[in-house]
């Protein structure tokens, strides 16, 4: 039996029925359909988080100049306080509240009598202490249930204080994972922030979407883009700001890093403002090179192309030696990779350039298009859970809509392999025979570890210690184990060094007591052979 069947076999029939469509083996030449974005089986040790985590924790939280108030009991605010390592720094012109966790700290009485009064007071206090230009309110579970109207409070506060107040109804129980929260956050930014600024458009300007600046990834990416001569209008949302995102509609091109969490904004900005979007990937030198060249092709300026090549050559040369030594250590190793919604795919490329093959992969909360590519979008049926997440429709903005490239030009780019409004998902890079598990759980982690024996396992803090207990090196790809950046060229070298270190550290030779190892001497009693 192949490992997939052995593992699934241990489930009860009900669970087996559910999980068999989420766990597949990639077969060459076949369409490889997977089930994703459906409800988690209760009681299984899922790695998924909730809607609040996706909205406040991932998308809204990193906005540095936004004072985000968690409306709810204390836990949720505390747990999402600085845990993702989305770095941000303020400057003279931008306030940074990243170090703060603001919560209405609801008590029993607030649940009984409603928390609206407390929220209003909390907004007042936040205005008085922080003088923010923008406040965001993120709801946790009880808020939707007791019926606090955070949207009315936001509107009232907006008028009262003359600042922007955003409200996100991202109660934890909505949707099936963090993914619903991303969508809610995207909608809120689209409706209330994007397009409200009046900056003048700048030549060669781009937005970096779905880059959360974990360990400084966004900074490293921006550095490369700036060297080439691009102007980054806004980053959504790592080290991003309300102030910058207001003007994001003035950019020429949207660069989509994390497809899962932010493709909604990319699509809506195309419809409303005519901003083209392109799937890029700045993880791994090869992917970074392709993305930079795709961008140069989009802008079609010889000087920009020349600088692109010059920067690539220089950056690549700087890491060549280091990459080669790491590759010497890592070549031939296998890896498992299991992160949120797009990252699992992004790192496959980088690992390949280090000679590491990914034998086991999956997403926590990806949708089918993140696995199979956007061409399956039309075939995805909407279920009750996805219908519960608001989906908004936007139309052309008569004042701000501007066609960037004509449809013909875009077609030509696509034909040349530039992924304009295209994303072909994880299947593009995963090797045949790899096992893919959607909404992976602890049980499957342990079981697949036993059968596939990867040399290193990339995932998060929750499964990290299970993996290490099994004698396998692990690296967290959610928060990078206090390291980073991993993006771009220099980041790739950081990653390579970290992985090489993880695998070669002497402890792996010691975790097994020597007397438990296979006998060092083998032999037989003299004279036995002759018998």
């Amino acid at each position, binding site marked *: 039996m192949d490992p997939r069947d052995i593992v699934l076999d241990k489930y009860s029939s009900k669970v087996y029925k559910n999980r068999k469509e989420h766990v597949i083996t990639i077969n060459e030449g076949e369409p490889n359909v997977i089930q994703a974005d459906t409800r988690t089986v209760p009681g299984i040790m899922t790695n998924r988080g909730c809607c609040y985590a996706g909205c406040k924790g991932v998308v809204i939280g990193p906005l540095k100049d936004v004072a985000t108030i968690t409306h709810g009991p204390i836990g949720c605010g505390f747990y999402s306080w600085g845990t993702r390592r989305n770095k941000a720094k303020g400057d003279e012109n931008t306030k940074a509240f990243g170090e703060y966790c603001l919560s209405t*700290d609801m008590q029993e009485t607030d649940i009984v009598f409603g928390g609206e009064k407390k929220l209003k007071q909390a907004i007042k206090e936040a205005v008085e202490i922080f003088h923010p230009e923008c406040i965001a309110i993120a709801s946790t579970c009880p808020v939707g249930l007791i019926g606090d109207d955070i949207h009315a409070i936001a509107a009232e506060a907006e008028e009262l204080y003359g600042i922007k107040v955003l409200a996100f109804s991202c109660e934890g129980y909505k949707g099936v994972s963090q993914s619903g929260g991303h969508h809610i956050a995207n909608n809120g930014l689209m409706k209330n922030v994007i397009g409200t600024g009046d900056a003048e458009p700048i030549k060669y300007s781009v937005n970096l979407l779905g880059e959360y600046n974990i360990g400084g990834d966004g900074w490293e990416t921006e550095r490369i883009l700036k060297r080439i001569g691009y102007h980054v209008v806004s980053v959504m949302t790592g080290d991003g700001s309300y102030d910058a995102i207001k003007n994001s509609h003035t950019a020429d091109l949207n660069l989509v890093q994390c497809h899962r969490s932010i493709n909604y904004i990319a699509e809506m900005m195309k419809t409303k403002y005519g901003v083209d979007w392109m799937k890029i990937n700045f993880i791994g030198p090869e992917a970074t090179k392709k993305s930079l060249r795709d961008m140069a092709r989009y802008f079609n300026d010889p000087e920009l192309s020349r600088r692109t090549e010059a920067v690539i050559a220089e950056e690549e040369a700087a890491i060549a030696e280091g990459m080669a030594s790491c590759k010497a250590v890592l070549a031939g190793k296998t890896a498992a990779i299991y992160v949120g919604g797009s990252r699992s795919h992004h790192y496959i490329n980088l690992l390949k350039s280090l000679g590491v093959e990914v034998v086991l992969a999956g997403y926590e909360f990806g949708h089918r298009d993140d696995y199979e590519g956007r061409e399956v979008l039309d075939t995805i049926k909407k279920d009750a859970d996805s219908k519960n997440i608001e989906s908004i429709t936007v139309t052309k903005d008569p004042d701000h809509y501007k066609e960037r490239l004509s449809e013909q030009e875009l077609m030509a780019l696509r034909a040349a392999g530039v992924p304009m409004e295209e994303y072909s998902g994880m299947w593009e890079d995963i090797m045949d025979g790899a096992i893919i598990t959607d909404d992976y759980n602890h049980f499957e982690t342990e079981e697949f570890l036993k059968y596939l024996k990867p040399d290193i396992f990339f995932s998060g803090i929750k499964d990290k210690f299970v993996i290490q207990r099994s004698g396998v090196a692990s690296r967290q790809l959610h928060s990078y184990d206090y390291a980073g950046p991993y993006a771009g060229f220099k980041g790739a070298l950081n990653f390579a060094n970290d992985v090489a270190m993880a695998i070669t550290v002497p402890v792996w030779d010691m975790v097994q007591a020597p007397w438990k190892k296979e006998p060092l001497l083998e032999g037989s009693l003299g004279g036995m052979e002759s018998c």
Partner: protein
Amino acid sequence: MSKNLVNLNVNPCKMCMPMGTANAFYGIQKCMSILHGSQGCSTYIRRHMATHYNEPVDIASSSLTEEGTVYGGERNLIIGLENLIKLYDPEVIGVSTTCLAETIGEDVEMIIHHFYESHPDSNVKIIPVKSAGYGGTQFEGFIRALRAIVSHVDMATEKNNKINIITSMISPADTRYLKDLLDAFGLDYILLPDLSENLDGEHQKNYSRLPAHGTPISEIQQMAGARATIELSDTIKPEESPGVYLFENYDVPYLRLNLPIGLRDTDALIDMLSEISKMPIPESIAKQRGRYLDGMIDSHKYNAAGRIAVFGEPDFVVSAVRLCCENGVMPVIAATGSNCPELKAKIEKEIAKLAAILFVDDYVVLNDVDFETIEAEALRLGANIMLGNSDGRRIEEKHQIPLIRCAFPIHDRVGGQRVRTLGYEGSQMLLDQITNTLLKTVEGGFREELYNTYYNEGPKYKYGLEEDPHKKIRILGNETPAQTKSVMSTLSIEEKTANHPCFSCGASHKNARMHLPIAPKCNIQCNYCVRKFDCANESRPGVTTEILSPEAAFEKYKLVREKVPNLTVVGIAGPGDALANFEETKKALTLIHDDDPNVTFCVSTNGLMLPYHVKDLVRLNVSHVTVTVNAVDPEIGARIYKHVDFMGHRYHGIAAASLLLANQLSGIKMLIDEGIIVKINTVTLMGVNDAHIEEVVKAMKEMGCFISNIMPLIPVKGSAFETLTIATNQEINAIRKQCGLHLNQMYHCKQCRADAIGKLDSDVSLDFRSSKEPTVEPTVASPKGLRFAVASKGGMLVDQHFGHATEFYIYDFKNNEAQFLEKRQLNQYCLGVEECEEKEDKFTRILNHLKDCDGVIAMRIGDAPARRLEKKGIQVFSTYDRIEEAVKTAARKMIKSQNLKNVSGGI
């Protein structure tokens, strides 16, 4: 009922109940936890526990979705239980509710009943706990889970010889200690819970996903028949206490003790164990005690320097504070994020006693508090060390107050599961950490200071290897100017001066400057400056939010350069003296010059070390230097400078002033000979040097200085001149006008902070320009003006909560200017929730103090006092700003509304 006085929790010092229940269930053998609610709760809690314990943490979820909120979550919870049993085969399952389940009113007892009905063969013990996130903190959650365990397990009531030991959340390493201790007394005990192995396991070849260790249910069943229960936490509420439950239902004698941290609390436990076991204290334990006592003596001479802030769960705070007190480390803050009103009564006497011994006049015990308040109090009370969980790291980073990571959670270090605090040895480890942290603070800077004082800047002279610098100075003063103008960079000095906002008025509107706060030390003590703020040569006395290392300053410079395109000048203006920190100054300027040779460097100094560093400044391409010269007559200087530290000696009085003056004069001369542009700053001290300033300026003119900047005094709380009359703008301008006859005057000075960035007027409004440009603001109708009471800690910023203020700075707003009148002392209005009953009296007292004021300005103020003030016709303003700005803004608001009233009244 919530007793939170504020509605916004800024940086919580607590977590929610299910965090506590999940921890507690990890101490039960073969037990799994499931949280009934959204799956995010489990994920977040697992994530935080895994980071702290560095162990796998498995907590299941019933994964409720929107559908479940409508139809109830029974189906999900039952499927969840089924799967958990199938995959993990546990003997016990703890079902903790969450905000969601409690809000929709799930009856978990009933659901479990249904589960047993539909699974008659199941022999898994399922224990429900009501643990809404809003019901309490992780501390209450932990205890509540223990109570649920003892009240749900089927008890065997036959008497046995066991002792029940119940603990709050202690580390696995401490739990192991406790077990060894109980074994040492030969006791037969039941420890509830026991997370010693499950959350700090050994490496094994095969990972077992079910926690194999911990207290078995079979043991817990015998708790009802035990000889006694000892609860090692004295802050558990009786209605939540498992020990009280066993006493009330099974008559098990109930005893409670503080967590055994520190000598006395460990003694109490050891004595009790000895009594119960009828066994003398084993020699090994007596030796541990002796060693700790010896250790307490070893470190006694260092501990009194400690001003510690202790925060965390209430029982930890009680015992840790007691450890600090018995070692003479002054707990200026004892704070818990939980709601434990008894905390104060438990420790205050002890703290007060130590405070009296150490002459500390202020400390606080804070209940139900967030880190914002702890931070503010730590700064107010001068805490120099913190003890608590790793969430204090933000205060540590921001204010360089070292944090000893202890208790739960620890997120930014490894080893949370191994932290030891219990018993004599645990106390010793904790005390050593405290003492060593204090020693590091002293010793770290001490050697450098010694080096700088006796080696770097002095020994040659001191040991007669070099000529007496005093003589040298006089000789230098008589030397003919050396014509050694150095070529510095591509920009001429004229261009640089024209672009320097502090030297050219035109440039002040266009060009930006950046002050690098890299120089914390000062070598003189001015009477208008407070040592703890360090010295002020110019600018707001030594105000900076952080001290940067030269490397960090360089990084900041690079960042600022990107964002502020008109940055032409980089200066070092303290917060101490640039030349008293010469190594830092040199390093920072070298880094920046290597990066961009066109930057204009500007250094500000009191001039004491100037003769020794002029050559260095030239080499570092410094083109502009500001020297603060307040007097050219040593007798006047003696009234201004308290002391001068030079070459390892402290000089006082006229000697100090003469020495400083001699060095200033020769230093300035050398600067001018080198072609460096010199600005002279002078602080106007009414009654001290105001009549003498013209003399100063004349003397400086003769030396060849470029511009003179005469500044008003900024009164600093606690300085010798804090009550000195302040020169009005008119008086200042009269002096400037007179002195302008001799030397160019700087009228546009903004008295910047030591870390100021930007154009001179970018963070200050119209004030100093009022003399040149007549104001367009409406002036007050009544000639009397407006009077404000300002809540401020240091007299510079509106940075205090009204309720925390023990003094108010009274400012008058007249002729469009904010003018300091006096400081009024009063007793603090709010000492915490416990004493709110007494508010009435105090508030009336405060009102009497403030009755002549038109407005009160504070960082924050409660609703009730705000209403009462307003009833008395005193307007209330909440802001965080510099006092003068705040007063002006408030006054303008009041005038505006008055004018409006007048207009409408007229119609």
